[in-house]
């Protein structure tokens, strides 16, 4: 999935995560993570974000993640929502996300 514009999803409320995705000028994922549980879960958060981007077929993007202690399922949901908002896809294929 191609990132064409800025896509934002999520909030800065407790148990949530805000994900901002922008187009990138090179074929790579640039990932920035800020989390109040960085020490314990930083690597796990990065893996969840990268796995979700891979599942969505995103190969190039700048991804800014502000985590407020979100569960993995919330992180996946916010990344997916931000990706779809940043792309030109109008229809979500939930079958592909299963």
């Amino acid at each position, binding site marked *: 999935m191609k990132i064409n514009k800025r896509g934002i999803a999520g909030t800065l409320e407790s148990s949530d*995560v805000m994900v901002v995705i922008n187009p990138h000028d090179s074929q790579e994922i640039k990932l920035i993570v800020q989390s109040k549980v960085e020490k314990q879960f930083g690597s796990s958060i990065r893996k969840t974000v990268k796995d979700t981007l891979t599942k969505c077929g995103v190969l190039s993007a700048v991804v800014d993640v502000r985590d407020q202690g979100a*569960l993995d*399922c919330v992180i996946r*949901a916010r990344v997916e929502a931000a990706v779809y908002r940043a792309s030109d896809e109008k229809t979500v294929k*939930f*079958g592909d996300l299963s």
Partner: protein
Amino acid sequence: MRLRRSMMFIPGANAGMLSNSYIYKPDSVMFDLEDSVSLTEKDSARFLVFNTLKENLYGDIETVVRINGVETPFWEDDLDMAVRAGVQIVRLPKTETVEEVKELEQRIAKIEKDCGRTIGDTKIMAAIESACGVVNSVAIAKSTPRMVAIALAGFDYLVDMQTSRSSGSEPELFYARAAVLHAARAAKIDAFDVAYGNVNDEEGFLREVEIAKNLGYNGKSLIHPRQIELLHKAYAPAQKDVDHARKVVAAAEDAEKKGLGVISLDGKMIDPPVVHEAQRVLLLAEHS
């Protein structure tokens, strides 16, 4: 047999509530994509509910998704997400006709086939929120084997009836409560009473629970976790009823072991519905 005393609403766009609400142990949880989700967050709410369901955070708690109404541009995407995520029940808001249920049923079957779920696995709950819905409630309740419950929704219904909530015996809801419950019982399905909006009014809530319970409702739609324990306590059977139910069930099991067609207790014959009610009382006692 499944208890459906408490069905707690959770806004589908609220990550915190979706992440934590299982700790309150309602019998059913209803992830809402309709009224509690703003138009600009319909898409993100679908992703949140989808991933929450896939994560199986709620374990044995029955999962329900309230989709947007069939008159909106959202309901088909809501349904596609919910069925593919494996939700147990789809709640259709503002149900007024059998045709709406049939359209929903056909669409569910198509998605089930496409994603490999057993056809018929996804159940339906119709929310009755208008005079038209109340009048058609028997046909709606009997419209499909997928229908497992109907729920009366008070706010929209009272607006449609050009009245508002009173306190006390609530005469404005009397006919709808009785009609929807009769429809459910005629169709052999469960019935949920209206939600009580004032979460700080414990006395008013319990008064309304008593009305619903005495009428025969299985439970209520709830909008706040603190209402769950109050409701479960109110539905707990008295000890003398539990003791009697134990005797009835024991007598039924004894008769079955001995291959007897007739069940008797203390010299009196017991009919199968009495055994069924005794089993329900024991289930309520176990979960109170």
